[in-house]
């Protein structure tokens, strides 16, 4: 298992993405699937950067691991305010251009590209687990 813990700020996005890029490559993901993994990770992180710590600074930790040789598991933890994006309704992807909203699209992407997504509030932390089958 590999892990990276950094301040939850947009300036650290590139470091997290290159970290997951390396992990994914080591687990055999490439091309389109590797990009989908980066998409899921970016969307999860950007939500945390924007909303987890409204009154100050905090950190976010990401872990990548291959389990049973079959499941590539990415876990993202923050100590910010409770946020269960998975419980929110999916965005309307049929609205006209004038009414189209971006909010909620990130979580929707994670659900669409990953094989499994779980959220839990554990020891005061938001834990998002994203699973891709190898």
């Amino acid at each position: 298992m590999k892990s990276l813990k950094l301040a939850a700020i947009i300036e650290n996005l590139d470091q997290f993405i290159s970290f997951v890029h390396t992990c994914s490559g080591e687990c055999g993901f490439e091309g389109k699937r590797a990009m989908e993994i980066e998409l899921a990770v970016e969307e999860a992180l950007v939500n945390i950067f924007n909303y987890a710590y409204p009154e100050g600074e905090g950190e976010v930790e990401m872990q990548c691991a291959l389990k049973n040789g079959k499941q590539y598991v990415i876990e993202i933890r923050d100590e910010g305010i409770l946020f269960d994006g998975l419980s929110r309704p999916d965005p309307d992807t049929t609205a006209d251009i004038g009414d189209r909203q971006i909010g909620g699209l990130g979580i929707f992407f994670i659900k669409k590209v990953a094989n499994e997504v779980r959220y839990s509030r554990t020891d005061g932390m938001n834990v998002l687990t994203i699973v891709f089958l190898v």
Partner: protein
Amino acid sequence: MELSVKNEEKGTLVSVTGRMDAVTSPEFEKELGRLIDEGHVNFVIDLAELDYISSSGLRSVLATAKKLKGKSGKILLASLQAVVKEVFEISGFSTIIPIYESVEEAMATL
């Protein structure tokens, strides 16, 4: 992300190279906003060299499209890579922003 801008006979061709993510996408919106302020209203965006786009990238494309709608302008996308096309399809954006197989095809509809 890198942008290159070329004035063609029927419109403005903007080629995007690299990644449109939460860090880089605001630059796309800013540059297109600048072009719109200069009077450009018909755009073809060549995405052949765009490797990746996230919801932040879609946000900047949508903001540009909304700006153009008020000016009766157009933004057409061309030559999307598979993963970029998938993001437009999942989000339903492919139904509100026209997508073409090639720059030539898009230019021909302006």
